[in-house]
């Protein structure tokens, strides 16, 4: 018989290296005299899309389009160290470094532009839609490239180097007290599953995933991280296991170490929650890792809801489910 159940999982995740370890990101930036810019960081885009986030940050600050920005990463001869692409830290940490860098160069440009436009303060200078000019006075503006180009002929360069360091403290090794991580990301996911009580097979029918990311700099990529995390979490909950025998891996192949296929991952509904994190770029904090956590619990809890058995060791294989059912209903044996 096939029985359905629903379950939820709520999780939290402290981002960054944490525990007072120096968590530093750096960025170099240059604004070119045609109204484009290049930013260099050591932060490697491993597929999650960090480089696009940096292009967006620079574009946002300079009033340009992301495609006007070149992001150079991962070449140690040219880019500064920005730490590991890990710990859900690259949007927050390197994002902050890039934001600081672009604001530093932009500040110089604003000061230059303020003189040009006889504006009393650099803060009165706005960069928008490819133009630089006086806020609220459309008559006083010019294309950004033109301003940079003019400045260039007068020996002005708009380049910058900046770093950002996350704030944490080490925990006390006697009692664990301290502020080991900042910021924390939160997520909650709900799963609906169908359990076949004869075969123990679990089919996941739907996942709803809500994640607090502070601010979604790129919502499409946030959804991408959520869906990818859900798929990995489903693999962890139901399928994957490195089988060891006296320390030797028994299934070192993708035909025996099974990850989910397109038919194993259900429809995923992503919900983005934005509880601003004031220390993050535009209020953003990370999502990469947290995305895979709640689904694991949601599925285990949904199995219990469906057939009344509590699986306490991952993965929740059909064998474990049938064995648990048999224990619950001895007449099934």
């Amino acid at each position, binding site marked *: *018989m*096939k*029985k*359905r159940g629903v379950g939820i999982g709520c999780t939290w995740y402290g981002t960054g290296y944490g525990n007072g370890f120096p968590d530093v990101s750096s960025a170099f930036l240059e604004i070119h005299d045609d109204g484009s810019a290049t930013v260099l960081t050591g932060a490697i885009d491993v597929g999650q899309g960090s480089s696009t986030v940096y292009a967006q940050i620079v574009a946002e600050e300079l009033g340009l389009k992301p495609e006007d920005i070149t992001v150079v990463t991962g070449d140690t001869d040219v880019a500064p160290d920005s730490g590991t692409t890990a710990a859900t830290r690259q949007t927050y940490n390197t994002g902050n470094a890039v934001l600081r860098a672009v604001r530093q160069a932009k500040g110089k440009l604003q000061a230059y532009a303020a003189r040009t436009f006889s504006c009393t303060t650099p803060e009165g200078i706005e960069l928008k839609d490819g133009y630089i000019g006086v806020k609220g006075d459309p008559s006083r503006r010019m294309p950004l490239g033109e301003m940079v180009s003019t400045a260039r002929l007068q020996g002005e360069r708009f380049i910058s180097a900046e770093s950002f360091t996350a704030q944490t403290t080490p925990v006390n090794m006697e009692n664990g007290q301290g502020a080991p991580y900042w910021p924390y990301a939160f997520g909650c996911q709900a799963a609906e599953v*169908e359990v*076949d*009580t*004869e*075969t*123990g*097979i679990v*089919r996941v029918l739907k996942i709803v995933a809500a994640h607090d990311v502070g601010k979604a700099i790129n919502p499409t990529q946030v959804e991408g991280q959520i869906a990818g995390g859900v798929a990995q979490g489903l693999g962890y909950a139901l*399928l994957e296991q490195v089988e060891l025998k006296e320390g030797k891996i028994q299934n070192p192949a993708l*035909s025996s170490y*099974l990850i*989910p*296929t*397109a*038919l*194993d991952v259900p429809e995923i509904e992503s919900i983005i929650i934005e509880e601003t994190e004031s220390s993050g770029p535009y209020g953003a904090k990370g999502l990469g890792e947290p995305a895979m956590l709640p689904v694991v619990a949601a599925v285990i809890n949904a199995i219990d809801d469906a057939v009344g058995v509590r699986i306490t060791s991952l993965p929740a294989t*059909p*064998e474990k489910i*049938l*064995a648990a059912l*048999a224990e619950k209903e001895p007449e*099934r044996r």
Partner: protein
Amino acid sequence: MDYFRPLSIEEALGLAQQPGRLFLAGGTDLSLHMREGRINPLGLIDLGKIAELKEIRLEGEWLEIGSMTTFYDLGQSDLIRKQAKALWQACQTMGSPQIRHQATIGGNLGNCSPAADGLPPLLALGAEVELVSARGRERVLLADLLKRTPLLESGTLIKGFLIPLQGWDSGFAKLGRRQALAIARLSTAFALKRQDGVALEVRAAFGAVGRRAFLSEPLAQSLSGRVLNESWLEDAVKGSQNAVAEALGSRASAPYKRVAVGGVVRQALKTMLGGGNHDGD
């Protein structure tokens, strides 16, 4: 290693006279076994250019399937869907689209993995196998062939399969660890000849329980000549569980499979008898 691309069966058989040469069908398993060093043939005889081996056709009272027919071609064939439903069903879920495009039904038998998806349906459908070699031709019931060791004498080519057309319904289901790219952990095919709500004759086949796919005669006997109703279905489920328990003996997978086969059999029978999918509460 030598590599041959014969254009006819005769040429292929001639090439196979030399020792150490293997017939190459789709190659999805053979090429892997070679890379892993499990086999080291002196020569490969690629059957891919012999058009005659790729045909599906009705011939009198028989449905003939060439050994080099791919799972994809079988799964697309109206003839197979109408005349050999269980086989058609097995072809929809075997491997992945890429594998189905390449793997052949003859290779499935020649490789003879315990989990070969094509064999339980062919067994249930009462298929015969046509073998050819330099020694001549032979037609043998698949069920009998699967009892031979080794399965094939060297130099023997599987020419094709012949399925008798005697009005059998059939159904297939399998159990894998995931929904695609899943090696069958258990598969079953049932065939049934019925009249006025009575199961005149039944065949029941199982795969991935033991060394090779097999037909369960006692189960078939116990289900034949009875009215098709709920208790027949439950007896089929229970009988399958007994058959699988017996076949697996003390294997580690036995405690799970001997129970789980119930659900798989139920699924195969439902698709065969109609009535749609049943859902719980």
